[in-house]
């Protein structure tokens, strides 16, 4: 039998490896890693190798479906309709919303690697109510790092394990991110590196760590503050790095906590002023920062000539962390003080004594020429374990500060950015700043998601109340840079801040594992007002599979699989760039669509054309693009900008990269090149990019960035201080509503601090003594395939993992049924003893448990009868009515819930749910 091999990009998880699909007689025979692909270099993971079972899954949706007249939402009773009718329904509904009040249309997507198109569609439609899943995933990781060092982990940057000697991984669940990190950890270990994992649970990557440091969930901030304290107290920080490349030497005014400026000097850029002051320790006077020959004092208190009292930001940081001794942190984290001190010494001494020098000359933004690139080989990685707490923003900021004190930012052996990162702090993308940004029949006047730098950037009305349905960028969650998808259904149901008409969900299981308070949210989705109408009048869901969420839809749009469509991993969103340069990639169809499946991208192009959204039609309102591939090739961010979704093979003949005219043969060029485009930067542009003049100039020419000012690390966050001043009534501009003033003043601290999570603060810790957390297993991480016939044989149901001491003290036997109860609800599940979990913590695999009948599994499948969701124990709302979210970023506090456990007399999972009907195929 002859085999045809086609290359494309995997989508079994979010990692986006290159794959080869081996086809025989039009059917998938085998999928393996593409050896020519720079990301995965030929390897593949359990998910990727199981792609064939996704393609042929019985849970595939194959026809557009409309909820049967009279059927309740959630019952899953549908009738098939044609695409024409589906589009007619949507067009009618959406055009009327757009003409009257565009914000009544909300578009939320589970995946955040398609935002270039979904975000464009929402903006063109004119609704502010758009976001991807970042708000309930890891926005704290993005925001905490980006507001501090201008970049973050995963798609934005990562640990340089090729050259690191010490690697510390904190709060990283099983497999984030998949193959590239697995490849790197293995090489790191084999080359003799030391790997330390800080995590309440020892699974996944942590299993092969040289040392496991168990920690109580949500207390990493305390550990990190103690580490920072010890690093400063011992003088183990990289002073040269701190002085030149962070704002540690900048003088902070004692009266208002803002940086002192040299008013006579040119700020260069009003948005990112460059006229702060240092106290030069040589001349003992204030000078403009980065004055040649000057060196800032990092400690002390000084008076400017006008009498203003100032202190260097580093002095403030040192004062802040001084009480946070290892003994203090031991009481909070459960990690022995001696271990904390040793960790600090290992980091500090390795950074100081194992320096790397690369013979690469470069010039910094202030014109100083450096004969070489140096690095301190201590690398970190962290993800949701730090992020998914309501204290996560400050925890992540503390981590970024620790990394900076060790002198490891964009240097060999430390943390390295991936283009288009680093970004300015904050990035210059902004939302509209008031309700006037939303106008009938017009695109949104700004982006739906942005990066506020001051209260003036918030998206609020004159009373300071939110414009977005999720209350993003309001005083409740001012820096909610990824939105708050987890608030949408509850807020829309409450009509707070206003009711909406149509909720469109793409690839997110908001009626099940991707929602807090699952039972109530399902009720809200099906709830009607006094007028007998649904409180959320219309719900459209696009997905490839029949899920608990599609059951609640009024209209179901059958998406294709990744093997059946075109797709782009764009520089305008989150590309697959590597440390050494930008890289983007595509998917090309290797199979025809199944049944009547249509890629969501085509749905958006079709809708955009029918609704005559400006980006999708010509001057006469006629459809501009034949289809999605045509759109990708010809769309430019502005006419003639030369910037499109894909950076490779631009220009009429494909000879240009990054910028250039559209190339009609662009898809072919990608297909001929393993579906990936890679632009390698010259060595002198690969490091120190926050402050690298050559890189900045190149990035400006390539239009990766508008501004070229250096990006100093914000040890001290003036951005946060601006919000705090507003809350204290000391800011000349906007102020928060009175009820939120204390909250903003408390949490917008310009220096990092630790506080117990908001949920812990509102919980009786005596009654609920245990922390409960979840993670996705490696074989299903970031995957839509826990129903996959092969993968479900690895995890068909889940247990509550519990330390034997904790369990036996409560009379719970290994394998027995038990109740897990929080102040919000309880679930019945099975216990599994584990020595690999901190005894004050219980945990389980997330998203294994399913509603009976969902995902085309038999009603008696393990997932429904033995599998459970911890989500039932987690509230979306805290006492007082605010969301269970970080008060700075709106990050969902998934891992903050406190529980107690006790034996169950009955068996079987609880709560129970009715059996979902199978949809027409």
């Amino acid at each position, binding site marked *: 039998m002859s085999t045809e091999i086609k290359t494309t990009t995997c989508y079994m998880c979010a990692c986006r490896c290159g794959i080869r699909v081996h086809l*025989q007689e039009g059917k998938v025979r*085998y999928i*393996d*890693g593409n050896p020519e692909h720079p990301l*995965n270099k*030929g*390897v*593949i*993971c*359990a998910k990727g*190798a*199981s792609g064939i079972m996704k393609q042929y899954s019985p849970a595939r949706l194959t026809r557009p479906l409309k909820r049967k007249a009279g059927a309740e939402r959630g019952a899953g009773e549908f009738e098939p309709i044609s695409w024409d009718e589906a589009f007619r329904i949507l067009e009618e509904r959406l055009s009327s919303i757009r003409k009257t009040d565009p914000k009544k249309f909300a578009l939320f997507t589970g995946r955040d690697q398609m935002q270039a198109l979904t975000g464009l569609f929402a903006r063109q439609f004119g609704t502010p109510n758009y976001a991807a899943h970042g708000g309930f995933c890891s926005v704290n990781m993005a925001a905490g790092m980006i507001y501090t060092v201008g970049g973050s982990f995963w798609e934005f940057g990562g640990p340089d394990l090729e050259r690191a000697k010490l690697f510390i991984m904190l709060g990283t669940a099983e497999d984030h991110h*998949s193959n590239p990190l*697995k*490849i790197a*950890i*293995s090489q790191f*270990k*084999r080359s003799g*590196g*030391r790997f330390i994992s800080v995590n309440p649970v*020892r*699974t*996944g*990557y*942590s*299993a*092969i760590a*040289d040392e*496991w440091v*168990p920690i109580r969930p949500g207390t990493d901030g305390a550990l990190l503050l103690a580490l920072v304290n010890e690093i400063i107290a*011992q*003088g*183990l920080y990289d*002073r040269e790095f701190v002085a030149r490349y962070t704002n540690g030497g900048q003088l902070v005014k004692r009266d208002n906590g803002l940086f002192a400026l040299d008013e006579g000097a040119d700020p260069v850029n009003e948005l990112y002023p460059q006229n702060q002051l240092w106290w030069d*320790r040589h001349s003992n006077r204030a000078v403009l920062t980065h004055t040649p020959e000057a060196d800032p004092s*990092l*400690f*002390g208190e000084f008076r400017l000539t006008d009498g203003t009292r100032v202190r260097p930001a580093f002095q403030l940081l040192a004062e802040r962390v001084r009480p946070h001794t290892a003994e203090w942190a031991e009481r909070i984290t459960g990690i022995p003080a001696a271990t904390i001190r040793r960790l600090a*010494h*290992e980091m500090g*001494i390795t950074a*100081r004594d194992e320096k790397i020098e690369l013979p690469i000359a470069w010039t910094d933004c202030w014109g100083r020429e450096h004969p070489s690139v140096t690095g301190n080989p201590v690398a970190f990685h962290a993800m949701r374990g730090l992020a998914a707490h309501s204290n996560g923003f400050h925890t992540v900021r503390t981590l970024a500060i620790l990394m900076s004190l060790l002198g490891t930012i964009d240097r060999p052996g430390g943390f390295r950015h991936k283009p288009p990162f680093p970004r300015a702090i904050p990035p210059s993308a902004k939302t509209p700043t008031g309700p006037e940004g939303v106008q009938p029949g017009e695109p949104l006047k700004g982006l739906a998601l942005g990066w506020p730098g001051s209260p003036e950037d918030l998206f609020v009305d004159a009373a300071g109340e939110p414009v977005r349905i999720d209350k993003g960028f309001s005083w409740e969650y001012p820096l909610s840079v990824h939105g708050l998808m987890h608030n949408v259904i509850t807020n829309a149901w409450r009509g707070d801040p206003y009711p909406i008409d149509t909720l469109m969900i793409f690839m997110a299981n908001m009626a099940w594992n991707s929602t807090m308070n699952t039972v109530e949210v399902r009720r809200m989705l099906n709830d009607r007002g006094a007028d007998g109408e649904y409180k959320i009048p219309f719900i459209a869901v696009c997905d490839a599979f029949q899920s608990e969420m599609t059951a609640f839809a009024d209209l179901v749009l059958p998406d294709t699989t990744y093997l059946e469509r075109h797709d782009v991993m764009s520089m305008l969103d989150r590309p697959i760039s590597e440390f050494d340069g930008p890289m983007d990639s595509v998917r090309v169809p290797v199979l025809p669509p199944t049944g009547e499946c249509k890629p969501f991208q085509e749905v958006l192009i079709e809708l955009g054309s029918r609704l005559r959204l400006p980006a999708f039609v010509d001057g006469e309102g006629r459809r501009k693009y034949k289809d999605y591939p045509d759109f990708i090739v010809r769309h430019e961010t502005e006419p003639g900008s030369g910037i499109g979704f894909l950076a490779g093979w631009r220009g009429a003949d494909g000879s240009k990269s990054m910028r250039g005219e559209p190339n009609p043969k662009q898809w072919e060029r990608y297909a001929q090149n393993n579906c990936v485009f890679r632009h390698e930067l010259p060595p002198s542009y690969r490091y120190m990019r926050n402050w690298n003049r050559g890189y900045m100039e190149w990035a400006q020419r390539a239009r990766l960035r508008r501004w070229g000012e250096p990006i100093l690390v914000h040890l001290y966050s003036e951005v946060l201080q601006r919000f705090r001043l507003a809350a204290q009534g000391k800011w000349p501009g906007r102020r928060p509503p009175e009820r939120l003033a204390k909250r903003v003043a408390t949490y917008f601290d310009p220096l990092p601090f630790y506080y117990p999570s908001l949920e812990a603060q509102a919980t009786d810790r005596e009654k609920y003594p245990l922390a409960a957390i979840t993670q996705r297993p*490696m*074989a299903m991480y970031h995957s839509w395939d826990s*129903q996959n*016939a*092969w*993968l479900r*044989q690895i995890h*068909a149901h889940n247990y509550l993992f519990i*330390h034997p001491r904790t369990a036996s003290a409560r009379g719970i036997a290994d394998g027995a049924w038990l109740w897990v109860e929080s102040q919000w609800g309880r679930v019945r599940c099975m216990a599994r003893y584990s*020595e*690999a979990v901190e005894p004050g913590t219980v945990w389980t695999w997330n998203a294994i448990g399913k509603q009976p009948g969902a995902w085309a*599994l*038999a009603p*008696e*499948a*393990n997932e429904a*009868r033995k599998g459970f969701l911890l989500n039932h124990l987690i509230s979306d709302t805290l006492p007082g009515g605010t969301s269970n979210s970080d008060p700075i970023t709106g990050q969902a506090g998934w891992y903050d819930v406190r529980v107690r456990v006790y034996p169950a007399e009955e068996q079987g999972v609880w709560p129970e749910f009715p059996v979902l009907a199978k949809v027409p195929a």
Partner: protein
Amino acid sequence: MKQLALVIDLNVCVGCHACVTSCKAWNTGGAAGPLSDQNAYGAEPTGTFFNRVQTFEVGEFPRTETVHFPKSCLHCEEPPCVPVCPTGASYKRAEDGIVLVDYDKCIGCGYCAWACPYGARELDGSEKVMKKCTLCVDRIYDQKLPEAERKPACVLACPTSARLFGDIHDPESEASRAIREQGGYALMPEWGTQPANHYLPRRKTAITIHADELERHANPLKIDGQLPQPATSEPALDDVTSW
């Protein structure tokens, strides 16, 4: 005589199951397939896999090790599954030491599974014949594949390169070298089966910190006056004694 084998490095295996499903994918559609599944979408799903990862814990908190342990047929040099086979279906190849099952001869009696001390054989639930790892014998000699890909599917898939493949009778092979130099061991040698597959143990890297490494002449705190020398005017022995 050649003896092909896998050498599995437990020092880097993170238990991702890539070897499990890539093996299933290659073999279910290939010469050794199909590898059937029972109740693929129902209760207690189960199917035939040539390779599985077992995860277990060693030690007590907080000194717990979590071990991911991939296991497949070990291609023993003295395979106990071969002599017990009543039909000659189980056999060991002279040319490369791979232990195989001839499905046409297998009657599914299960003696071989009973004889195998490693639990490496699986009776296919639909076809009722014994199935097991073939070291991808249909890949490793396939001249149509590029040479670099003439390896078992699990070896090519493994993201941590935890699986080495080679001739353990050739002392210069990568597999032999790894066994020799990194403490490679065989499972349950007391059974006398001489498994060809070997495992490499966990290795720990530590950093030793000496107390004096915290003290440096160039401590940056000095630059900012945080480790001041006492002033010359402060009391000293010179004030009180003349010796």
